[in-house]
């Protein structure tokens, strides 16, 4: 237990001081913000995937809705960055709340196919609804506005992302350690048994779906603020796949797994796409090899070694 605390403390200090050291190891502050944003999205997804046992291949939809919601608020209605982020987050969360009950009508592989298809629906809406979303070119014409007189440069914005990452992580941690979270894990382990005990498992899975969608939408809103841009690719199944591999790569049975996975994934992608045009092959190999050789993820792998 103490060892875990030491690791946690070191990680926290590292995250808090990113603007000081990240540049010296070849990174830049915006890249660190991207790691946190993807980590937040994958942790949100992991509530459903790793802790409730629901394999959604469509969570980019809620990420993208968060991005578009935040962007559209800033373009059309307000100059308040936080208000726009709140609106985007609620938009994505609401969509997940409404669509979850449809998706949970089926389980297993079927559930995955349905979530992919629902996600693609939003993708095509974003591409075709030109007047509002900017179509294939994406949504531009907004930028993050100062909060309480503080201009959000790279460093300030990184800390804003870190704060929201902390809020999201705390929300998920609290849920997982509550009776609700224990119910989620029990559904993952044996949903039939819970059904026999008189628990409406589909409602709980839908609730997990909605919460994880809400956290993804928060991450999406932050992503739009980071780039001052929302792209249809934010909604695409490719990004859903990236979130899944981030969770698996880090270790989906571990609370902090997605953070480790996001750090590896974002840094590898950033580095490889700078040195070769064939970066898609490398990312594809990351998918294939990690599934075959590291199904437990980095954290799961170390935990197993520790036990052995």
């Amino acid at each position, binding site marked *: 237990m103490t060892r875990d605390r030491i690791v946690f403390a070191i990680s926290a200090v590292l995250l808090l001081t990113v603007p000081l050291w990240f540049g010296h190891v070849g990174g830049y502050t915006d890249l660190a913000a991207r790691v946190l944003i993807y980590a937040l999205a994958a942790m949100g997804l992991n509530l459903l*995937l790793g802790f409730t046992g629901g*394999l959604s*291949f469509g969570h980019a939809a809620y990420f993208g809705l968060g991005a578009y919601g935040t962007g559209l608020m800033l373009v059309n209605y307000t100059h308040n960055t936080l208000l726009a982020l709140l609106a985007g987050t609620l938009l994505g969360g609401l969509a997940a709340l409404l669509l979850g009950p*449809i998706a949970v*009508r*089926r*389980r*297993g*592989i*079927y559930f*995955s*196919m*349905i979530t*992919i*298809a*629902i996600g*693609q*629906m939003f993708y*095509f*809406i974003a591409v*075709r*609804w030109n007047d509002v979303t900017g179509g294939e070119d994406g949504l531009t014409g907004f930028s993050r506005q100062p909060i309480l007189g503080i201009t959000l440069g790279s460093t300030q914005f990184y800390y804003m992302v870190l704060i929201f990452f902390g809020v999201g992580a705390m929300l998920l941690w609290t849920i997982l350690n509550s009776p609700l979270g224990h119910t989620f894990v029990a559904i993952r382990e044996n949903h039939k048994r819970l059904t026999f005990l008189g628990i409406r498992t589909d409602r709980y899975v839908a609730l997990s779906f909605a919460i994880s969608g809400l956290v993804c939408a928060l991450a999406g809103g932050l992503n739009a603020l980071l780039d001052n841009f929302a792209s249809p690719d934010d909604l695409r*199944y490719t990004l859903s*796949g990236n979130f*899944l*591999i981030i969770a*698996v790569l880090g270790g989906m049975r571990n609370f902090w797994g997605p953070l480790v996975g996001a750090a590896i994934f974002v840094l590898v992608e950033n580095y490889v796409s700078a040195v070769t*045009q*064939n970066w*898609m*092959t490398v*990312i*594809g*190999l*990351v*998918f*294939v090899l990690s*599934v*075959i050789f590291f*199904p437990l993820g980095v954290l799961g792998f170390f935990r197993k070694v520790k036990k052995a």
Partner: protein
Amino acid sequence: MLLDILFNAFNGLIVGSFYALMAIGLSLILGLNGVINFAHGGFMALAAYFAFTLVPYTGFWGALIIAPLLAGAVGYAVEQLIVRRLYLRDPLYSLLATFGLALIMQDLLRTIWGAQGLPLAIPDFLNQPVSQVYFFVTGYRLFVVALAILSTGTLFAVLRYTRLGVRIRAGNADLETIAALGVNIYLLRSANFVLGIMFAGLAGILAAGQLGLTPTMGDELIMPSFVAIVVGGVGSLLGSLLGGLIIGVAAGITTAFYPAASEVVIYLIMGITLIIRPRGLLGQEGLFE
């Protein structure tokens, strides 16, 4: 106006044939191998590019036969190297591995044949318009529909009347039992995977003749094929066929009225199906859950 609707409905029927061929291959693999093959679109494009390369040497007809076989051979290698390691594991892993495979295949296609679109030469007599009285239909479009019907008919006959077909159907019902009865299920699963890939290959060549070749051509067809399976009902090949045709025609008719919604309507049909008949048109209750 009526002609316009008919024209678009017929166009939709052709696109629906591509969806249906893709969905049937996916369904076959999902049924016996228990894997959602995300790389199906990659294999489809691969066969189309093989055909593109073969046409100067073998002509269109030779390519139509050889290219799916070559794609099937690649499929066999992939099954041996990667996919067979994923059987009986959580579907998460097969989804992610085949998704990664799709990325690799798309990237390799772009590296080898280039990112820009290429045309697939089709025989001149198929390019002639059949009728200009009502609306413009080339012989190729009729050919696509005919070949889709023929190949699915053949598949159903193989499944119904041959030993291999009986084993595939029995394996769908209970793989352990047929293994205990002495069927080599490893070989059976490989054969079934290759069969599914060859259907994707056929769809790819036919689609390339109509729409041309791009490395991402599989991307555009694989999602509607998933929807076709959900609408038609998981576990039913006939359902996949129907699902593909229905969403193709629906998208075509929507194009006549409101082109921007032609893609979204596919997903709306899926949503409605799930609400009023969750198991799909011809699906069995509780399969793969």
